[in-house]
Structures are given as structure tokens and as C-alpha cells.
């Protein structure tokens, strides 16, 4: 049973000065699942993501990913373990092309080694070709293939969100952390994103999703964790959460 657990974080805490942004929070998700993380504004969801992905060092607590403690690792090694995050406000590399944005993501590229750039050009060329094909097919699936050679900075907000999600896929992750993938995206596109998430999930990728759009959360997730004022409020299946009086109270206020 425990073998099935992909990510488990226990007792995570993080304060900014006097604010306890995350206070003794716990989260756990199974391999192959789509898990939701909800809570009112300022509940500490994004901060919790930052702790999981080691963008912030936790004051206390531990993060176990794929049976390995990762909270001591440097930030850049997290992606190599197979966990990639997106940002609440989509971040793209403006002055690089959409395709280059995609090609940045694969891990352990030979051509990232400055010496091999000059000495092993053949291998690099081969890798680049494969990565480019993969990138184009992912871009095609999210409808950005016609933009491949354009600057990423010229994309609209929704397109940037798509690009950011597509980019995480390029690094062959086990788990993708999505921070509000549906925020600022039109309803048709939201449906498309949801379909993609389901498809990618079938292909074996797990998701942890922060989202205020309850339709998205309820339709996608196997399990939902609720955070309020930095601490766990509840967790359970979508039905359990929908009928939990504490959750309604936290969202609607008293």
C-alpha cells in the first residue's frame, strides 16, 4: 500500500516574518492519481507548492518523493527526480521561441555540458532531433504548433498557460504540480486543458492541482486536500469535500 504513495509531505511549516503561511501541513498522493489542493485566497497553497518543489526551504517538516527524502536537495535537482511545477502566473521565456521553451525542459541533455557541445556534436544533433519531434507533437496536441517558431512573449495569457503545462511534459515527469491552470483561461480552453490532463494522466503522469474553479477540481480529482490559514482543514473524495461543513464555512466565511 505505502509503495503506491508517490509524494508525502509531513509537518511542513513556513513563516514569513510573523505570518505563518504554511503551518504544520500534510499532503499525500498516490502514484497515478490526480489530486486537488484547494483553499481560500492566502491559504498557503502556492507556498506549499514552493515548499514541495524546494523553491523555499521549509522551516520544519519533510517531503518524501518516490520513497526519497527531497527537502534537502537543491531546487534544480527536484525536476531531475521527476517532479516539475508550474507557476500561478504563467512564466514563459519571452525572447525565446515557443519551441525553444519546450526544448529547455528535457533532463540530462548531452548538449547542456559545455565541453560536449564542441566534442560530441553528433549525439547532440540526434537528441535535438528527437526532442524537437516530441516537442512538436506535444505542441500540436495543445494547438500551439503553428506558434512554434514565434516568440513565447507574443503568446496570450491562456496560451502561455498551455505552453507552461506542455513544457513540463517535455521533462518526462512522474508528477506535475499545476498552480491554477484554469485561471484566466476561457471555458472552451479550460475543457481542453482538462481533457489533456486526463489523457496525460492515463499515460502515467500524476498531477497535483491548485484550482479555484470547483468544476475543474471536482471533475478531475480522485482526492482533494483542503488548506485554510496554512493548515489542513480536510481531505477526501470530491463528494466528501463537497459535503463537508467546515470546507463550506471556510469558503463562504462563517
Amino acid at each position: 500500500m505505502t509503495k503506491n504513495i508517490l509524494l508525502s509531505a509531513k509537518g511542513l511549516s513556513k513563516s514569513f516574518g510573523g505570518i505563518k503561511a504554511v503551518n504544520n501541513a500534510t499532503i499525500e498522493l498516490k502514484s497515478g492519481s490526480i489530486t486537488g489542493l484547494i483553499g481560500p485566497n492566502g491559504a498557503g497553497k502556492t507556498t506549499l507548492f514552493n515548499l514541495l518543489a524546494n523553491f523555499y526551504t521549509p522551516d520544519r517538516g519533510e517531503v518524501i518523493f518516490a520513497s526519497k527524502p527531497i527537502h534537502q536537495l537543491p531546487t534544480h535537482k527536484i525536476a531531475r527526480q521527476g517532479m516539475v511545477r508550474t507557476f500561478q502566473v504563467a512564466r514563459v521565456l519571452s525572447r525565446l521561441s515557443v519551441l525553444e521553451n519546450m526544448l529547455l525542459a528535457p533532463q540530462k541533455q548531452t548538449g547542456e555540458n559545455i565541453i560536449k557541445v564542441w566534442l560530441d556534436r553528433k549525439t547532440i544533433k540526434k537528441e535535438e532531433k528527437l526532442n524537437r519531434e516530441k516537442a512538436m507533437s506535444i505542441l500540436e496536441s495543445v494547438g500551439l504548433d503553428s506558434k512554434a517558431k514565434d516568440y513565447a512573449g507574443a503568446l496570450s495569457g491562456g496560451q502561455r498557460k498551455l505552453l507552461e503545462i506542455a513544457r513540463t511534459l517535455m521533462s518526462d515527469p512522474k508528477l506535475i504540480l499545476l498552480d491554477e491552470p484554469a485561471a484566466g483561461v476561457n471555458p472552451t480552453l479550460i475543457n481542453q486543458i482538462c481533457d489533456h490532463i486526463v489523457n496525460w494522466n492515463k499515460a502515467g503522469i500524476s498531477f497535483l492541482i491548485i484550482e479555484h474553479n470547483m468544476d475543474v477540481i471536482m471533475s478531475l480529482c480522485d482526492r482533494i486536500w483542503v488548506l485554510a490559514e496554512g493548515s489542513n482543514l480536510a481531505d477526501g473524495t470530491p463528494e466528501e469535500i463537497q459535503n463537508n461543513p467546515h470546507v463550506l464555512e471556510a469558503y463562504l466565511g462563517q
Partner: protein
Amino acid sequence: MLNFIINLSNNSGYIVSLTILTSVFAIFALGLNLQWGFSGLINFGHIAFMTIGAYTTVMLSLSGVPLIVAVIIGAGLAALLGFFIGISTLRLREDYLAIVTIGVSELVRLVANNEEWLTRGVQGVRRYQIPFVDWEPGILGKVIAIALLTGIAIFAQWQLLRGIKNQFKEYRSVQNKSYQPTKPIVCIIWGAIATIVILFIYINGIISLYNYHYQAGLMVLALLILALVYSGLEILVRSPWGRVIKAIREDEEIARALGKNVFFYKLQAFMLGGAIAGVAGSFYAWQLNAVYPTSFEPLQTFNAWIIVVVGGAGNNPGTILGAIIFWTYDAVTRFLLPQLGIDNARLSALRIMVIGLILMILVMWRPQGILGKKEELTLGK
């Protein structure tokens, strides 16, 4: 035509040193372009790397170390300086790097000025070994040198044509893109100018190799190293490594989220840029014949910035173009202005003023530099 060639051969020595200076500053600025143009690292003390390369080369060769080894050690020490600056500041916010580079460059200048046991201080270093000085080429030697020069000229022209061809291709595939590529006519004009420059340097090079003087040999070597540094950098910035570096320039959080060791990449770029400036320093020392601390004023850092900005940041051909423009400007004003009856003291002030003016006009008219892309300035994060 004959007139032109006679004229050229009378001035060929001057044009040879101009070519060497241009190559030296092109190499120097290519180092800065890697650091700032591609990696976004602000280096306001670039001259420090050149100083270290120059002094190491001349002092070591004076004590009998072979020239090649001296140059390599000079570049290595320049990279080491980059390493120490890098590990202390590259983890911090970017402005710290800018401030520390200013400080370190001043420190290096003071050492060159005052530590006489190491650098001979203000009296400077003279009579050091310079490549080709004792070389008396026979016919074979000259033929080899000319063949080498021809090879470099063909390489340059080939690079130029390839660049123009790519611009054409981009222009034709303009649909579905949010930006406006350079118009073909503009490409052709620039291509023609560049071709004339290449031909000019080539013909003058052949003349000077024929009437051999050691500077002609130095020129071929400087052009060769420039070609090597340029092509090495072009491969690098188009590789996955270059992509990571550019990504860090854009937004290092993204690079980090995607598993790139941001600090390490910045350090590599900074050190390599420093090492390249170190190599430029060796050639600068050879061209100068004698090195004094005053040859390495902070103004040289500023000159490298001008070259990069004029050519277009993050564009290697642009940087070479910038160096050519910079030294053409220098030569033209040095010869033309005195003929207008302006005395020397006013002259140097005027020249700097005009540089300032040109920069202001450039920033208003073409802030991205001559070969830069405008969209790269206006795209929001």
C-alpha cells in the same frame, strides 16, 4: 584600381594595426557579449580580465615560458578571476555582480599600478616576446600565410552569406509570426558593406604579407583566433547549453524549475567570457609593444559595452560589426578631424562627445543595436 592599391600599400602598415586592434576588441567584446548579451550578467569590469591576460602573457614570456603556454595560463588566470567573482556574487541579486566587477577591476588596475615586483608598476613592461618578430618567411612561409588569410576570408564571406540567406528565409516565412524580420534590401546593403570590408582587409593583408613585417603575421594570427572564438561561440550559443543560458537571462526561476543548475551555468558563462577577454589581452599586449597600466583604463570596459550595444546584444556577428564600426570611427576621426583645423586637446574631447551622440541617436533610432531584433526589446516578460 592601381592607384587604390598603391595608396593602400603606403598605408598598409596602419591598416594592419587597425585590423589587429579590431580583431582584439572584437574578441574582447565577444567575451562580454557572452556574459551580458546571452547570459544577462552585468560586467562593468571587463577590462580586468584583459589586464590579467596581457600581464600574465608578457611577464611569463619574459621569464622564458613559451608564448602559447603563457597565453593559455593568462586565459586560465582570467577565468580564475571570473570564478572568484562568480562564486561570491552570482548567487545574489544581479546588481551585486555589477558592483563587484567595478570594484575588482579597480583592484586589478591598482595592482598593475603599484605592485612593482609583479608588474613593474607605472614604468611598464617592454621588450617582451611577440610572435613572428624573429620570423623571416621565405616564399613558402608567405604562401602559407596568404593561404591561411584566404581561408579566413572565405570563412567570413561564407558566414555572411549564410546569415543573409537565413534572413531571407525568415522574411519569406513571415506569416504566423508576431514580428517583422529585416527587409531583404537592408540585408543586401549590409551584406555589400561587409563584403567590401572583408575584401579590403583581405587585399591589404596580402599586400602586407608580401612586404612582410611581423605585424602582418600577428594580424593573420589575430584574425584566425577571432574566427575560432567566433565559431566556437556560435556553436555554443546555438546548443542546448546556449538555450539554458538564454533561459536564465529571461527568467532564472523557470530554468530552476526545469532542473537547471542556474548558478553553475552562470559561473561557466562568466568564466568563459573572462578567459576570452584574457586571450584578447595577450594580443593587445603584442600589438602595443609595451604595456603600461594606463593601457587598461576603465574606459576600455566602456568601449567593449559600446561595441556590444551598437552591434546588438546577444548577437555575435553584430559584436564583430560593432568592433569594425568602433575602430573605423576611431581611424576616420583621427585623420579627418585634424584636417578641419581642430587641435589635439579639443579633438579627443570632441571624439568622445560624438561617440556619446551616436549612442544617443542609436538608442532612439535602433535601441536593439544594428543586428538586434526589435521585438526582443519590446516583448513583455
